[in-house]
């Protein structure tokens, strides 16, 4: 493939420190040929937006295992839109199936849960990137 690799900003948004899943996803995306900008823990929507602008990112991936997705997911989407950035958001973590419609309605482009394979992770991020207008 000769196309430019997708560039993905990965961050833990909020206070939750469980970073095992996000680190595994970072390596899966790298092995899948993407460029990963890993911001690490305790990021805010502002620090993530700074990174998206500086790195010219195609997708934002945020992770949370503490049931904060209903609040923080839509907040990330809104913050990117407010900043005038057309960058889709993928959420990873413990997101109950019944919350997926609400996530989609809020503009979250993809949700990855426990047990997602490397192929699923890469496909989800690619599909999210393809939603850009």
């Amino acid at each position, binding site marked *: 493939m000769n196309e430019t690799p997708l560039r993905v900003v990965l961050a833990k948004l909020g*206070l939750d420190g*469980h*970073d095992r899943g996000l680190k595994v996803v970072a390596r899966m995306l790298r092995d899948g040929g993407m460029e990963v900008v890993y911001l690490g*823990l305790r990021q805010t929507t502002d620090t993530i937006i700074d990174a998206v602008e500086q790195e010219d990112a195609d997708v934002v991936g945020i992770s949370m295992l*503490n049931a*904060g997705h209903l609040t923080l997911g839509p*907040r990330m989407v809104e913050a990117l839109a407010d900043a005038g950035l057309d960058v889709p958001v993928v959420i990873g973590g413990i997101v*109950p199936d019944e919350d997926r419609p609400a996530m989609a309605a809020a503009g979250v482009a993809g949700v990855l849960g426990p047990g997602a394979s490397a192929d699923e992770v890469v496909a989800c991020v690619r599909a999210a990137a393809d939603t850009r207008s």
Partner: protein
Amino acid sequence: MVGKNTDRARGGTSEASSPDDRYRTLSGILVDRVYGDGPLPGEFPYTRGVHADMYRSRLWTMRMFAGFGTATDTNARFRELLAAGGTGLSTAFDMPTLMGRDSDHDWALGEVGRAGVAVDTVEDMVDLYAGIDLGTVSTSMTINGPASILLAMYVVVAEEGGVIRGDLSGTLQNDILKEYQAQKEYVFPPRPSVRLVTDVMAFTAAEMPRWNPVSISGYHIREAGSTAAQELAFTLANGFAYVEAAVAAGMDVDDFAPRLSFFFNSHNDFFEEVGKFRAARRLWARWMRDRYGANDERSLKLRFHTQTAGVSLTAHQPEVNIARVAIQALAGVLGGTQSLHTDSYDEALALPSEDAVRVALRTQQVIAHETGVVNTADPLGGSAYVEWMTDEMERRAEEVFAHLEGLGDGSLLEGVYAGIDSGWFVGEIADAAYRYEREVNAGERIVVGVNAFTEGDDPERRRLLRIGQDTEDLQRKRLATVRQDRDDAAVAATLARVATDAAQPTVNLMPALVDAVRARATVGEVVDTLEAEFGTYVERAVV
């Protein structure tokens, strides 16, 4: 009794050697309290267990971890657990509390009461333990960065309720080193954080003799992706680091070591887990005696809590998790645990529901009362495989200790600090986590219901616990009320003393913390005060 191996060789049926008639198999065969040659359970180096009779003298404590919503919500769950036969309490705090931030802090948005109970002030703690006799029920509090503050609150709640601090029994997790390595719930940099840990150790040794001031925890290291051997090695290394820190702070090893306790994960590989628990006891006993000069037998005995492996639970076909938890719990019991939390089968989907928690507790009760595994101490001792696995775990841990000693020029404490600063621990753990994921992805490891045997998943049947936004709103109102009703001058004065004492490394901070929270200073206010003195730790982001 010891040494009557001829009877045991015949199957342990001798009536004379074991007069306790209660211990019979389902078929009526009388069972001896222990089999095999020494060293027996209760004898150095305690590989086979810390008590001669193990579960005959006392079952493990069935300690279920709970916490969600407001203090009142969690109090109701506590009472249900005690009514259902639980024998101890274990408190889960929400993310803002764990990070030392109040519920009205910007960072707390969306996280109040979601993954644990929200505690901002002593008033929340009063509601949390309402109607529970703190003089008789032992309590565990899973908190680290602000652990000293929460312990101060517990003391104030008890004393305002008429129970003196010396009568309190329980455990504070208070293990900050593994936070930098794995769970990442730290506030201050490592060195001042370890000072807070040793302040708590000195305070409880002097004033709360029934309290376990640190629960040295491998659980989170394992959940973050380590192997069993890494969990064992890093955890014990952290334990030795606290011993060195406390001795450096002027304490005598036998004054605090008897109250140190441990907390391990129990994962799916049954015999590896059993070997890990047995090796942990042997390593601790030997190092405490030979390296740190402990003389009190209690200083040598590694006591531990076990929790089944949350990370092993699957969102696919969640009922299968009940089987996983039962097997993991059995490994903990056969490994000689002193207390046990069994995970709920719905934990990969959401916070555990009440029904799922009950199944998890019942799983422990089946092991305790139906399987007969409690009838004889260390029933797996002497198995060639189990003894080999125990030796192998020990050997691998010793390799890590040697590496850390090298990093620290002979000091485990300095070696652990160096491993944190350089990112060695997080790198080792992340490598192991990715290796495992690749094996599952490649189909080299079967995860039932995930990459094999996948038919039969039914998302419709799931009933999940939900914490709404109303919890956050309610908690913020409660906090506003406390702020309004308190004596602000008293709060300011007590916080000023916290700042003064924090600046003096040789002063124990606990008395100042007790005074501050008694005046209704919030967790966030105390943390801010300490942070101004100690600084903030920021991890380097490394994949």
